[in-house]
């Protein structure tokens, strides 16, 4: 048997990298327009909205949109199979694949709702401070629900799915920690404004979105590197 398995070449690496960069550019532009539209429609500008709030709006829309899209795709087993498979699809998505996709959709949508809710509650909270406690309680309930779904997703995934989750989590931690460190030090030295808990979580969620989206493209179209194969590169 002389045939060699097909592996991602440098040209397909280039294609994957282009796809990732293109998706960031398109997602960023569409998100920016959506945020501008929402700010106008819901009078979110002015004293109620910080830069972190604007990014939270963008992230919330992106998470909610991704969740809705995945939920829609999961209603058609052939379409779902095509989104996962690297070649011609003959087998429609199985029950397990549909279940995992719906769990992912619910986790993404809940993340979007939890990021958007505080922003849309800001105006009312400014008029009725007691409303903040009710909003906070509702978000805690959603967070507990999302945590349960995340655990179910982990348990339902196979070794490759779990490995992908671990890589996304580790990459998000590494990049987020570096950015938070640099921002924190600059703030402590008085070079920038201080960082709030909300700023920090929005920064981490931005990293998570960027890494998660990149990992989906890499999982779907491949990226061949010595580092990924566990080889020493020095």
């Amino acid at each position, binding site marked *: *048997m002389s*045939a*060699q*398995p*097909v*592996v*991602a070449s440098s040209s397909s690496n280039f294609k994957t990298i282009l796809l990732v960069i293109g998706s960031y550019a398109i997602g960023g532009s569409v998100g920016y327009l959506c945020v501008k539209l929402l700010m106008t429609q819901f009078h979110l500008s002015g004293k109620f909205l910080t830069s972190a709030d604007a990014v939270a709006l963008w992230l919330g829309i992106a998470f909610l949109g991704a969740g809705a899209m995945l939920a829609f795709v999961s209603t058609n087993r052939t379409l779902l*199979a095509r989104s*996962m*498979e*690297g*070649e*011609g*699809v*003959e*087998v*429609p998505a*199985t029950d*397990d*694949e549909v279940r*995992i996709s719906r769990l992912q959709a619910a986790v993404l949508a809940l993340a979007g709702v939890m990021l958007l809710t505080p922003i849309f509650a800001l105006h009312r909270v400014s008029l009725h401070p007691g409303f903040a406690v009710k909003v906070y309680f509702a978000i805690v309930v959603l967070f507990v629900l999302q945590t349960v779904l995340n655990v179910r997703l982990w348990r339902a*995934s*196979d*070794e*490759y*799915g779990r*490995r992908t989750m671990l890589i996304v989590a580790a990459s998000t931690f590494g990049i987020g920690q570096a950015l938070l460190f640099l921002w924190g030090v600059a703030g402590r030295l008085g070079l920038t404004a201080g960082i709030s808990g909300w700023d920090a979580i929005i920064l981490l969620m931005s990293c998570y979105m960027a890494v998660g989206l990149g990992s989906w493209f*890499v*999982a*779907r179209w*491949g*990226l*061949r590197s010595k580092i*990924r*194969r*566990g080889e020493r590169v020095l």
Partner: protein
Amino acid sequence: MKNKLRVLRAERAWSQGELSVRLGVSRQAINAIETEKHDPSLELAFRMAALFQLPIEQIFEPETK
């Protein structure tokens, strides 16, 4: 780790989806192994060996420099 999974699958005219069902893993896992993005666990490698009725070393081969 190089592997002959794609060839073995093609010889049996199985799609990635079919093989994933037979091995009890996702089709993304099959795709990732075939494209050498993921080295399977020992447990999965043994399941593959049993399915194709081949020794593991006839399916997987370490990459040599």
